């Protein structure tokens, strides 16, 4: 049955995707399968390749090697696939002469599933000035416009790259509400990158964590939220307790040591921590991602003063 086949291949498949600018490897051997109709968080520090990955999938840039399939087709060779994707870049440029109204009027030509009622509702909720020329919009207004276009596009593959630069807490809340409502009513695949990880975490079903051009973790949100924990106490007790486990970060305060450890503790280990009077606390997803990033920076540093001291 062809129906089964097309369902099986729905989604994004990345195989060994690499992007280099000369000797600078922005993405290295990225392999991942993103089944359709889920909201994904693309997380990681600045410069790890999040925007580049979105640009490659949406065919805004060309990969150096590897393969990208969206619903089984290469976007590079298939215009029909490209029509199913919407990616408004964080630094999106519009025709200077265009007002907000003009941009929203031409948008349906690019997005066949355009929902003007969604565009109208969002424009009003974000209080976007319709007659203002695009170049006169503030940072927050440009972000709001990008959100209006991406959500109203109802594109099967929707890419949101740092969608809320310059947006205040109220505008971000409106965005979260509208994203969930739109997604619930019209499911689609959403890839969202953000630094406000803890704020965005409840919206996500799965996360992909990028580090220095590689995917270091792809998992569901509950698993990712249990990615690490912090142990704090007397230095010798902490080191004794964590034993051979991989430590992401270490911080000292007098004779106290606080370490971020990858993974989870079982009940037995929790009891032992209690006996040693160690405090064990879960980390938020944001703290986990930050700890991974700090760990990577420390690893790549030429000298590690603490460890190399005689």
């Amino acid at each position, binding site marked *: 049955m062809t129906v089964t086949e097309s369902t099986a291949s729905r989604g994004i498949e990345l195989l060994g995707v690499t992007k280099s600018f000369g000797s600078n490897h922005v993405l290295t051997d990225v392999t991942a399968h993103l089944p359709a109709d889920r*909201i994904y968080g693309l997380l990681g520090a600045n410069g790890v390749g999040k925007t580049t990955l979105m640009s490659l999938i949406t065919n805004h840039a060309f990969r150096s090697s590897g393969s990208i399939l969206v619903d089984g087709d290469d976007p590079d060779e298939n215009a029909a696939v490209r029509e199913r994707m919407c990616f408004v870049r964080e630094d999106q440029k519009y025709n200077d002469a265009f007002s907000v109204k003009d941009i929203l009027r031409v948008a349906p030509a690019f997005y066949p599933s355009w929902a003007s009622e969604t565009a109208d509702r969002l424009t009003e909720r974000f209080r976007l000035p319709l007659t203002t020329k695009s170049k006169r919009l503030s940072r927050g207004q440009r972000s709001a416009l990008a959100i209006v276009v991406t959500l109203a596009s109802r594109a099967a593959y929707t890419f949101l790259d740092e969608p809320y630069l310059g947006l205040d807490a109220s505008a971000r809340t409106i965005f979260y509400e509208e994203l*969930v409502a739109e997604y*619930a009513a019209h499911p689609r695949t959403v890839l969202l990158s953000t630094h406000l990880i803890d704020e965005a*975490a*409840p919206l996500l079903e799965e996360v992909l964590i990028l580090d220095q051009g590689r995917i270091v973790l792809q998992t569901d*949100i*509950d698993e990712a939220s249990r990615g690490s924990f912090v142990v704090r106490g007397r230095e010798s007790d902490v080191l004794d307790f964590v034993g051979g486990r991989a430590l992401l970060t270490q911080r000292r305060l007098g004779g106290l040591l606080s370490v971020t450890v990858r993974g989870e503790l079982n009940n037995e280990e929790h009891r032992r921590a209690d006996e040693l009077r160690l405090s064990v606390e879960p980390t938020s997803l944001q703290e986990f991602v930050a700890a991974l990033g700090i760990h990577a920076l420390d690893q790549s540093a030429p000298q590690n003063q603490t460890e190399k001291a005689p």
Partner: protein
Amino acid sequence: MSPSADGRPIFVEIADQIADDILVGLYAEETQVPSTTELSVHYRINPATAGKALNRLVDEGIVYKRRGLGMFVVTGAPDALRARRRAAFTDEYVRPFLAEGARLGLTLDEIVELIRKDPS
């Protein structure tokens, strides 16, 4: 809604919230609880997470599915929840409470006296 400080996943937190509401009678027996979509929009959470919360309550025998209609509160759910919470009361409240008392050097008699004197 975000993961709580004790590290409970969001779906557990939502399930606990609905269970609290059932316990105090905000959702009566055999009445409907909010749908996946209603929960996700209200709490601004992923619909899959809202679905997991409802499934957890189904697994615990607190709500049940009426085909094509939605999720409803099981008859006897408030009593069942109360019994379960009472069973967990020692672990979740009494033990940490006594441990803090011990850290402060309070004797059991002193703690009992504090409880007796508490105006609430």
